């Protein structure tokens, strides 16, 4: 028997940790955050075990059923995303404990705010992965966004405040547009539940407009080109753990929500032209993000534009799913693996960049010369993460890329395949540019005397980062396990092969 509160755990526990983090005195924070994040991650295991034993699970917290109450639903894709959030949560948590060393009074106060904001983000993201109705998506996305604003602010500089302002404005507007869309759909169908909406799939003006508005709203949060501008700005000044969360988690979640809305049923309302338009925007994002990443002089900005590019990859899925693909299950799992592996790898990359920044005091590539010899660990993490970002085997990102290119070739959209490959080329170019800069010897020998000591908590920062980076490679060794989990209750028809 599954306890009726099982699915609320992944949401409730991080919220409780957020409250605790607000009230605990500072010296205890580090220890409790570490334990708290582990606990929150461990709550996933009973959920997954229940999933494997009983199939998709649907629960009504508090006993309130639809349409008044919020229902939580766990199926295969949700489970994988919960694991993803848990990995990122533990990784970022342990990393941040080492990163936010006690400093001046002002900085400590701001850093202190990181913990509750981050736990709230985690809770909201878990809630999004477990949600089943359109309105809950609105509420949780607003939570994520507002927490995100707070996280961007932690840096405290005017640049960070400006970035936070821009992000706040954009998410407010996006949220309102989304809400209008939800209202229209509700009015047309009398229903908010994604599964029940499957009975109302005839096109109609209100429904179509509603889906359009919901899509538009989510596109900003997903930082799809050309609405990605808030992303590089937000990353520029933000501390590394914040960047990891923004690029790794927030953006991915928005995409996952959009695909959840579309593929649970409402997507049939969308015409082929819209699928292709999303694919076109995704392609533009891939190329734009890649080209701009090549021009940046700061490491974190390169990674930020890399996120813009990788988000473009994800949106190509829309252009590939409306036709007869050779293996829709594999295409779907390819997209999921791309999303998850990118989140993990980007998180690890930002963490490595954070270590470099802490040690060298800057993230300007021209000033980071020779950093590879002083921080081999950080460069190693960056290298492992790059394997995934470039889509090279043996990484999950490669698996995703393979299946997407395969679908593109099969459906006759060779152009999309070429764009995917070009994206890989561009990512190779801008990532190796970083490695070359890190390896270059310093120009003058006198700078040797100005060497700063390594930050004391460097190992504590690098271990979680390496964990996340390896998490993008290791699943390749037992790919059948995530494939099997994905197939449970998946919205896409499954082929017979494992």
């Amino acid at each position, binding site marked *: 028997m599954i306890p009726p509160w099982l699915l609320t755990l992944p949401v409730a526990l991080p919220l409780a940790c957020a409250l605790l983090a607000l009230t605990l005195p500072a010296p205890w924070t580090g220890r409790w955050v570490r334990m708290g994040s582990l606990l929150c991650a461990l709550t996933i295991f009973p959920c997954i075990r229940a999933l494997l034993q009983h199939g998709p699970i649907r629960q009504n917290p508090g006993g309130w059923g639809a349409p008044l109450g919020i229902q939580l639903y766990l199926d295969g894709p949700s489970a994988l995303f919960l694991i993803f959030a848990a990995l990122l949560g533990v990784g970022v948590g342990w990393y941040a404990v080492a990163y936010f060393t006690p400093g001046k009074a002002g900085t400590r106060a701001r850093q202190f705010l990181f913990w509750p904001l981050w736990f709230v983000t985690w809770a909201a993201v878990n809630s999004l992965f477990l949600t089943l109705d359109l309105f809950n998506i609105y*509420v949780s996305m607003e939570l994520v966004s*507002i927490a995100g604003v707070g996280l961007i602010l932690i840096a405290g500089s*005017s640049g960070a*405040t400006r970035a936070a302002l821009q992000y706040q*404005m954009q998410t*407010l507007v996006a949220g*309102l547009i989304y809400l209008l869309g939800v*209202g229209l759909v*509700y009015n047309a169908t009398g229903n908010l539940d994604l599964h029940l909406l499957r009975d109302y799939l005839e096109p109609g003006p209100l429904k179509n407009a509603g889906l359009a508005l919901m899509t538009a709203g989510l596109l900003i949060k997903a930082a799809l080109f050309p609405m990605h501008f808030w992303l590089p700005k937000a990353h520029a000044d933000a501390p590394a753990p914040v960047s990891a969360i923004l690029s790794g988690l927030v953006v991915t979640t928005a995409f996952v929500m959009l695909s959840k809305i579309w593929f649970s049923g409402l997507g049939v309302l969308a015409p082929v032209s819209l699928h292709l338009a999303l694919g076109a925007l995704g392609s533009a994002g891939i190329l734009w993000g890649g080209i701009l990443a090549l021009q940046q002089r700061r490491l974190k900005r390169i990674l930020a534009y890399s996120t813009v590019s990788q988000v473009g990859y994800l949106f190509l899925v829309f252009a590939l799913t409306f036709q007869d693909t050779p293996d829709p299950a594999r295409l779907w799992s390819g997209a999921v693996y791309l999303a998850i592996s990118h989140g993990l790898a980007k998180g690890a990359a930002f963490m490595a960049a954070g270590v470099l920044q802490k040690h060298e005091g800057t993230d300007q590539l021209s000033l980071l010369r020779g950093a590879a010899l002083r921080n081999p660990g950080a460069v190693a993490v960056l290298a492992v993460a790059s394997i995934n970002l470039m889509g090279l085997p043996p990484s999950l990102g490669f698996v995703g890329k393979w299946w997407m290119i395969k679908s593109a070739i099969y459906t006759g959209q060779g152009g999309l395949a070429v764009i995917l490959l070009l994206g890989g080329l561009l990512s190779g170019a801008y990532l190796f540019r970083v490695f070359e800069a890190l390896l270059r010897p310093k120009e003058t020998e006198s700078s040797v005397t100005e060497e700063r000591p390594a930050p004391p908590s460097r190992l504590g920062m690098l271990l979680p980062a390496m964990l996340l980076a390896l998490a993008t490679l290791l699943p390749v060794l037992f790919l059948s396990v995530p494939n099997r989990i994905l197939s449970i209750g998946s919205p896409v028809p499954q082929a017979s092969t494992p």
Partner: protein
Amino acid sequence: MTDSTVVYALAGIWIAMLGLRSLLVNRDHFKRIVAANLLGSGVFLTLVALAGRGEGAADPIPHGMILTGIVVAVSGTGLFLALLGRLRELESSEEEET
């Protein structure tokens, strides 16, 4: 669907579009947050009007959605204004330094 709800719904859409236009045209932060609130009001009005469709009492669920939306919009506006104030502070202190 009675006439008044149609009028209100269309009015709501119109107000929302006004807000959106103001958002795009203005660059001053303060004007933009007002425009965003205008957009919000338009959206809420539309939803309320649509909720009033049909016979009998108005549907409470969209009301619930709107209330949540109002809360989010108000707190978002408050956050925005606080950020604006902070930005002004930071910028003036930076000017003093240079």
